[in-house]
């Protein structure tokens, strides 16, 4: 009933139709319809998946299909191999929501509309492909598909020093994927040969024992390579510049989807395939992520531009993803996945709201804003809610994700983990400070500029986009158990592999 290739086909067809469209209006509607169909199909996938799991289908990956993509017997074997578990389903759902809302938010893009929407759709195609692939090489292929459009989106439709930012982002992400590429080739040649054939098959590699010497070399390459995508310290500096120069939808995609590619890769590829090395390196991972959490939060305090604020806060929040993975307990890994979903929705909403404000005020500098609650109450309410989600208000998704990470991290009884957890926890205070400063200065207080009185509140597309994201945030915040139920069985499998690493 479910064919995962449809998830790639829909964006592909949309992209072609976008190219064939006659005018800007057609382009937008085609793109929107395409993303809506995709959202519908992803929801169907999630529903079917949950039903199948409830019916007792405990296979690790559901709806698998496999065809040889590029094979030279006894030399090279690359498969188009797809399949999903709960974690990838959650990620696909996240991608579908962010893509749909990102296209809605971009409704007013006027310059080179066709190319803009084509690139957005292409980017989403890469993300979907990445999340469903079970062949390392195919995964890498889709990862690259998702990188290139970002360069163009920022370089052409961006603002500020956009060429610099686009170049920086593309080079750093490319650097990250180069590390991944080296890592996966290294991994490939160290897989056990079954009949003289190495494999890129993720499921098979997971069952093999990759020699520990190999793991020691490959794991850091992979982890850091994917880590660059999720803005791991100290390779996070593409994020502030990239986000601030990017057009709204690109920021949403970047933070909502692209950063999650990295987190997913760190978990699914690096940690899952190389459990022994994951244990050996966990201390370094924790150190780096704790630094990212704390230092990202403090750096945010000093930012004056709303987009820089959210970009640095994303560094801090994505630190929780890496932190959760690094802690290597079942609960903390669960928390990391929840944080990915939660942060994806929340940051997309935040960037969306910032974009709406910017479109009206033409400034993102907090000092020049003020009293906006009076003129654009809907947008500001959404902006505030995104902020409150970011500071971990119960009832919104950030709270459950962060608390799960903390609970999981605290299960490690050694002093090192304890100290790291306390430090990570303390970021919730700093987060509250910068969020309230940003909200207080831009939304509250007296109106700073006469022009602000003539603003129109959110249009239909902006409202629809905000409410869709808000719905996701509330769904997780109020009923977290459905998300845990979705992902827990599959983190369990990853954990079993990790325990194997521990015993050894």
């Amino acid at each position: 009933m479910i064919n995962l290739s449809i998830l790639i086909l829909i964006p592909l067809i949309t992209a072609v139709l976008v190219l064939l469209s006659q005018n800007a209006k057609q382009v937008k509607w085609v793109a929107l319809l395409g993303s809506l169909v995709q959202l519908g199909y992803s929801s169907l996938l999630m529903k079917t998946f949950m039903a199948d799991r409830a019916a007792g289908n405990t296979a690790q990956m559901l709806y698998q299909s496999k065809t040889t993509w590029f094979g030279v017997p006894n030399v090279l074997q690359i498969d188009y191999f797809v399949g999903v578990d709960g974690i990838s389903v959650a990620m696909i759902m996240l991608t579908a929501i962010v893509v749909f809302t990102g296209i809605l938010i971009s409704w007013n893009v006027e310059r080179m509309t066709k190319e803009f929407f084509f690139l957005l759709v292409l980017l989403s195609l890469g993300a979907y492909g990445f999340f469903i692939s079970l062949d390392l090489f195919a995964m890498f292929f889709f990862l690259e598909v998702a990188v290139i459009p970002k360069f163009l989106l920022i370089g052409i439709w961006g603002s500020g020093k956009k060429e610099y930012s686009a170049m920086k982002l593309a080079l750093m992400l490319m650097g990250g994927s180069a590390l991944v590429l080296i890592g996966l080739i290294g991994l490939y040649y160290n897989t056990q040969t079954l009949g003289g054939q190495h494999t890129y098959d993720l499921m098979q590699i997971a069952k093999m024992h990759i020699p520990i010497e190999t793991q020691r070399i490959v794991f850091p390459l992979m982890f850091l390579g994917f880590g660059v995508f999720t803005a791991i310290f100290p390779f996070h500096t593409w994020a502030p510049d990239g986000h601030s120069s990017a057009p709204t939808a690109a920021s949403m995609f970047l933070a909502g989807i692209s950063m999650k590619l990295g987190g997913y890769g760190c978990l699914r590829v690096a940690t899952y395939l190389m459990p022994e090395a994951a244990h050996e390196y966990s201390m370094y991972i924790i150190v780096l992520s704790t630094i990212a959490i704390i230092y990202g939060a403090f750096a945010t305090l000093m930012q004056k531009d709303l987009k820089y604020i959210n970009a640095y806060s994303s560094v801090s929040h994505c630190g929780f993803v890496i932190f959760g993975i690094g802690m290597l307990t079942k609960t903390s890994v669960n928390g990391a996945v929840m944080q990915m979903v939660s942060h994806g929705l929340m940051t997309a909403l935040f960037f969306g709201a910032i974009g709406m404000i910017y479109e009206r005020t033409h400034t993102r500098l907090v000092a020049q804003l003020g009293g906006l609650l009076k003129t654009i109450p809907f947008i500001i309410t959404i902006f505030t809610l995104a902020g409150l989600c970011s500071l971990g208000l119960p009832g919104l998704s950030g709270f459950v994700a962060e608390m799960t990470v903390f609970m999981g991290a605290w299960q490690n009884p050694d002093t090192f983990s304890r100290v790291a957890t306390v430090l990570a926890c303390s970021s919730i205070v700093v987060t509250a400070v910068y969020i309230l400063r940003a909200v207080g200065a831009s939304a509250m207080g007296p109106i700073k500029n006469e022009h602000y009185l003539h603003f129109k509140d959110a249009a239909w597309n902006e409202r629809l986009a905000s409410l869709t994201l808000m719905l996701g945030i509330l769904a997780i915040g109020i009923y977290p158990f459905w998300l845990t139920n979705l992902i827990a069985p599959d983190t369990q499998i990853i954990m079993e592999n990790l325990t194997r690493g521990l015993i050894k």
Partner: protein
Amino acid sequence: MLSPTLIALIPLLPVFSFLLIALGGKKYFPNLCGILATLAILGSFILSATVAYEYFFQLGPTAGAFKPTVAVSLQWLPFSPDVSIDMGILLDPISVMMLVVVTLISLMVHFYSLGYMKGETRYATFYSFLGLFTFSMLGLVLSSNIFQIYAFWELVGVSSFLLIGFYFDKPSAVAASKKAFIVTRFADLGFLIGILVLAYYSGTLDFQTLITRLTTPTDQLHHSMAATFMGCSALSWGLALVFVGGAGKSAMFPLHIWLPDAMEGPTPVSALIHAATMVVAGVYLVARLFPIFAISSPASLDIVAWVGITSSFIAAIVACTQTDIKRVLAYSTMSQIGYMMFALGVSGYGGEHGLGFMASMFHLFTHAMFKALLFLGAGSVIHYVHSNDMKDMGGLRKHMPITHITFLVACLAIAGIPPFAGFFSKEEILTAAYHGNKAIFGIALVTAAITAFYMFRLYFSIFWSKDFHPYHTEDGHGAHDAHHGEGPFTMLLPLLILGLLSIGAGFLPFGRLVTSDGVAIVTEFNPGFSAGPVLLALAGIVLAWSFYKKQNNAPDQVAGNIKGFYTAAYHKFYIDEVYIFITRKIVFNLIGRPAAWFDRNIVDGTINLIASLAEIVSFLIRKIQSGKVQVYALYFMFGVLGFVLLFMFW
């Protein structure tokens, strides 16, 4: 007993009203929102009163003690098979008592605001926030799980933030709302880590299991006592950290700085949140975990006692010097909550030893009545005078007779004059302190006298002192044209109801209902013991009378004689300045700014440096690629020659 659905409706009705107003009511029927919200909370109150009646009188004690029951429990966020956050409703004497207090005061405030907030542009929004707050507060008191209480704890924090910043175009209100949220957030960090510690050692988040495991000799208790950090057991650390959270919410020294500023919110909000309900959440939290404190970690209980008495004393002194009537009330709130805290701190567990616990809860109950009354009365005064400053007031007894009488009742109650409500609860607290800790008892006595003094300073300054000339105020129209300055009926009725409760609430047989272990205790009235505190309070009142009944220069003279001390107290002992120094100078300038600089210049600089190096190197070596075949042939020749030499001589 009521069905679980009906009990669940108690917190849900306010949240329905919040959603209805926020999602549609605000836009389509803004003027009905107040009535709608009030009806919702009336429903909650009736249900709460029924639950209380049934719990205390129909269900009654089982085997001599009131037993806790879990009416509703839903698994919300599972962490592992044993540990999960559940959303539940726990009914026991303290939660049932709080249920009544919260819904009653909330109802009074809702009703009062119908008049007080009339004509506000954000009238509907105000009621939606009140609904959100009431929901969160009820969720907090009904929590059956320590993480649930933390979640609602954060929610009341954010409701409080929204309501303090209600007049959001006023920069001082924005600053106050941020301050309140951030200071309590800082304290909540302690709470969170405390929860992590307790959850780790007890292996559960459920309150009842947690208390059982950590008060009876189990493995969990043993482990948590055996593990030590910096000389204290993990259990003591956990409890102390949880108490930090409670101290932040309850504005205990030195985390109290947000409370006076929180008075920027509308006055009914101050009555509800910052006097009667939310600020006592810290006391409630300690009471909730009281068996663990008292049985397993008396050391942490000592911290509670000393933090409580210190806050109580300092706040009382500062209150004597403030001129903003709401700030005086804010400090008096802090002082009275200090009373509740140290009462818990000096208490033991079970039977007669638990007198302090019972007294603390009793004081929480009576305080909610008379302090809400004081704030609502102050609201009426401000409504009329359009100023918060007592210098603009005086002689108002002729203009607002009902406010005057009810305010006087509340002042007598808080001063602890019999037979008003505060007398009874304060007596129990002092008795408990006398048996528990003599030093604390001594300071508490002095504080009681100061309390009477500053409350009557407030009373005389508002209602006596000089004559009030309404036509001479800047805003000389509207209400001032009337013969007297009372607000509408909606504002008077709550004053009268709370006035009656402030007189009568003390006669409740509290010791039979709410005790540390659920077993009734008999409290005997001891006139010999009571005479002292009452006389001290009367002395305070007389002093206030001589200073403030008529305008004179005696207060200024006294203030002049102790100038240094007076100035320090007037500036709230410069604690705000210390905080500003820490945040501005240390957090921002020594951590934030360097972090941002480091990121831009060192981390990013390195990345840029690598990029520039690549560019320079490629620029340098590009000449090699000249495109001339002859040059390439030359390179080739040298290359071959080089290799030949290499292999010959190596």
